[in-house]
């Protein structure tokens, strides 16, 4: 029983990391008022580029770096359309999904199904990892896990809510007109954080193939990008809540694995559908309670392109 619980929490934490990285990236973008629906494509690109980099260099850190670089590149293309040209953000996001998924599957075809040659290995934190059950699952994990679930969310929280620059970031997302008047460059802040968010999302892809599932295949992203977008809404755009939500979703994934391993009398269809159904539920549940406008904590200018000419 203890063995099972340990395994389940371990894989919950591992699975949660993918969602946490992607959702934290999206949180950054949405905080500056830009909704990026292209996460699924970005995760796929990050995952495949990381795998290709590891196949050529044998170093997982270079894989992570390559994924981050492709994220910045794709993020810039997206931001060029959605922030500089100020095109419809939903269309740009869908376009990014198709570009990312299509490209990733095309260039990933030669390595599809081949196990990666080098992965991140678990780093054991002394003392802490001796705590039963939680110790091993929380403190005996590869380094990217600590980054995704601890370092990154805490620093983002600090950045957003404890620094002057964070205030500027949030101002751009809430009321770009006023931010503009106050001398903040709306376009540069939006461009920068949309790109950083995209890079975090491709890093989530690298995490997926270098930490969690050590191979690239066509369906490996399995809707995680869309779940991450839902997670941001669920977490009300707060980095620390994003992490809790991500681990909750990770736990549901782990539940599916455990049930299959232990031959629980539940149909595998139901188990595989669980994360998607749960996503629906976490979207609908809170929304029923908070029907008043903006009780969900969404930045007021989310999704709206900012034209200085049309400021009122």
């Amino acid at each position, binding site marked *: 029983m203890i063995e099972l619980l340990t395994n389940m929490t371990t894989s919950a934490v591992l699975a949660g990391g993918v969602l946490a990285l992607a959702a934290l990236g999206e949180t950054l973008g949405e905080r500056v008022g830009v909704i990026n*629906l292209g996460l699924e*494509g970005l995760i796929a690109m990050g995952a495949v580029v990381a795998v290709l980099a590891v196949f050529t260099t044998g170093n997982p850190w270079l894989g992570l770096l390559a994924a981050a670089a492709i994220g910045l590149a794709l993020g810039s*293309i997206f931001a060029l*359309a959605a922030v500089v*040209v*100020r*095109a*419809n953000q*939903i*269309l*740009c996001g*869908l*376009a*990014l*999904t*198709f*570009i*990312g*998924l*299509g*490209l990733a*599957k*095309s260039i990933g*075809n030669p390595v599809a199904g081949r196990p990666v040659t080098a992965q991140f290995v678990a780093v054991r934190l002394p003392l802490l990892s001796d705590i039963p059950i939680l110790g091993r699952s929380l403190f005996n994990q590869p380094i990217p896990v600590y980054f995704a679930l601890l370092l990154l969310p805490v620093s983002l929280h600090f950045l957003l809510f404890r620094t002057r620059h964070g205030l500027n970031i949030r101002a751009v997302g809430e009321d770009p007109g006023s931010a503009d008047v106050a001398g903040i460059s709306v376009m540069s802040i939006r461009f920068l954080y949309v790109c950083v968010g995209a890079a975090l999302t491709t890093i989530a892809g690298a995490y997926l193939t270098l930490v969690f599932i050590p191979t690239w295949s066509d369906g490996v992203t*399995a*809707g995680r990008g*869309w*779940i991450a*977008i*839902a997670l941001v*809404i669920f977490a009300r755009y707060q980095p620390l809540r994003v992490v809790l939500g991500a681990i909750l979703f990770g736990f549901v994934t782990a539940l599916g694995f455990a049930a299959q391993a232990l031959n629980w009398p539940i*149909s595998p*269809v139901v188990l*595989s*559908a669980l994360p*998607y*159904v749960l*996503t*629906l539920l976490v*979207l*609908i549940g809170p*929304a*029923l309670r908070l*029907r008043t406008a903006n009780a969900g904590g969404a930045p007021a200018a989310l999704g709206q*392109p900012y*034209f200085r*000419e*049309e400021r009122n």
Partner: protein
Amino acid sequence: MALKSLPRPSIGWKLRLTPIASRNALVVARIVAVLLALLVSAVVIKLSGLSPIALGAKALKSSLGSEFALEQLGLLLTPILITAVAAASALRMGLWNIGIDGQLYIGAVAVTGVGLFVDGPNFLMLLVLSITGMVGGALWVLLPALARAYANVNEIISTLMLNFVAILIVNYLATGPWRDKTGAGVMAASARIPFALPEFFGALHIGLFLGMILLGVFAFVSRFTQFAYETDLVGANNHIGSYMGVRTEQRIVVIMLVSGAIAGLAGMIEVTGNVHRLQYGISNQFGIFGIIAAVLGRGSPIGIAVGSVFIAFVLNSGLVMQSAGLSLNSVIALTGLVLLAVASAEVLARYKLARSSANLVRSKVDAG
């Protein structure tokens, strides 16, 4: 007179943002965007060591050059036309039905369920199956529709989540309870359904005409009914409904159900016209392609027709030229690029070259 000492602006003309683009500017911008996206793809193809011109020629030949090619083009055009109408119906109200694939699949599930276990004359059964498919598709969008209308839940994510669930259900049924037990050599598919749409040109079935009729109905309703007029207004402004006596929430549900029902009809037509079985891959991402076709066509009936033909052509080329190093996936990437370019063109078309206002003041002062 003090104004005279103002520096003269260096450029007398500047770009000015107008609130809405002119119709001509939009058409031109759209065509330029599509060409630009194709050009970028050609460069990428060139860089990957293939000849874009040879591929293009092959694409034209493979889609238009023979009877078989035209037949395949028609087979792809049929579902894309219908899913494009489904997407455009929702977009009339500013709703993004990204779950068309899922609704198509569940429509197909419902059709297969009835088709396998109920018997009757072909014509009557096709009628029954049409309704079955539409009900299936509408039911699959019911929850996201209600959630969007009454709890303001983002319909993009909710409809998309149900796509994954729908595919799981199809895989389960096609490989489990409904799998073909006759040993006809069909893997991972249900038994053959005995009811089929008549074919008129090789394997091309009358579904294409049904799609055209559907587009005609969409055009008629959009142009001549109060329903469509109200929907446009309510879609453009959430609050206007209460002044007009239209219940916005109810209208959201109705529009989403209509969109889902059309998607389900596409599922019925694919099952009875093309595939004749339930299997994964009935929807070759037709939902996505339909959305792109609808966006390319800006929701106008003629635009949807042109957009659908373009997407079907690109998709057909991608499928036929798999041996030449292309794939369905590269086609998806290409359509993404087209979408990005078109979205940008939409805004760029709003810029107008105008004489700078400073210059106007200047010339007025000069004139006294």
